[in-house]
């Protein structure tokens, strides 16, 4: 399946949960947040939310800013 992650196209063998996506990307979920198709995914739902073909995923972190 094909998804967008932070503007980049990713090809994956099949659907996966948000938790599994973090593992796959080697990103620590601490101080990160996720939106799929512009809907914020609650951390408590990471294990139960499935990323499917065509999803646009945004994973964000805190950075410097004024």
């Amino acid at each position, binding site marked *: 399946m094909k998804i967008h992650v932070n503007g980049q196209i990713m090809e994956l063998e099949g659907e996966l949960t948000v938790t599994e996506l973090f593992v796959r990307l080697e990103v620590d979920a601490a101080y990160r947040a996720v939106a799929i198709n512009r809907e914020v995914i609650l951390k408590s739902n990471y294990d139960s939310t499935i990323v499917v073909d065509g999803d646009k995923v945004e*994973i964000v972190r805190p950075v410097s*800013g004024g």
Partner: protein
Amino acid sequence: MNVDKPLIIAGKEYTSKLIVGTGKYPNFQVMKECHTLTGTEMVTIAVRRENISDRSQESILDYIDTEKIDLLPNTAGCYNVEDAVLTCRLAREMGLGALVKLEVIGDEKTLFPDVVGLLEATKQLVADGFTVLPYTSDDVVIAKQLEDAGAAAVMPLAAPIGSGLGICNPYTIQILREAITVPLIVDAGVGTASDAARVMELGADGVLMNTAIACAKDPKLMASAMKSAVEAGRAAYLAGRIPRKLYASASSPIEGMIE
């Protein structure tokens, strides 16, 4: 004698009236030292994409002591209500709390706020339980609307972000001081210490700055200067300045002059 009160935002007391940004510093270590020198208890951060391909980048949170300093996520770069609200919800889900500096930008060159969008976003975020600090213009009409909409403070710009122009219109800041009952925090445009002191002399409850410190030739020295300036300006405001007069009023007595 006027005894100073702390800056109170949504029920929490802050001794420091200086909120500082985290952008544009030469590096994170200098940023951290500047924050310490300002005595700030709140710093802004931005919300941006994780760098999926380069995992070696440092985390800004390693350079902020969150036991002493609260984080204020901003919605910088958001030009519409939907993006700003989404950014705030992402910030909250990151674990940064429900305090947000709300920016809905209306113009790329000036980075002036789109106050119509700002008001709408404020209403939505307040309804969703956020503590909203809106970055706004110095227009008292929109400031009162933001206050009525539940904003926890009003943050008018003194001059365009990063411009260093100082207070373009001190009269509108004074008008806001008289009209607004939530904390008035002047945000954006401060260029040097005298600007910060002037902001506080006008009666603001706080001042927020980033570029003035981060891009100074000596950021750490400027950070110290800003701490002093905010304290001096606040003390001068509480002390009650003399009125401005057109003509002289001698400081030494006339009587006893030799002939």
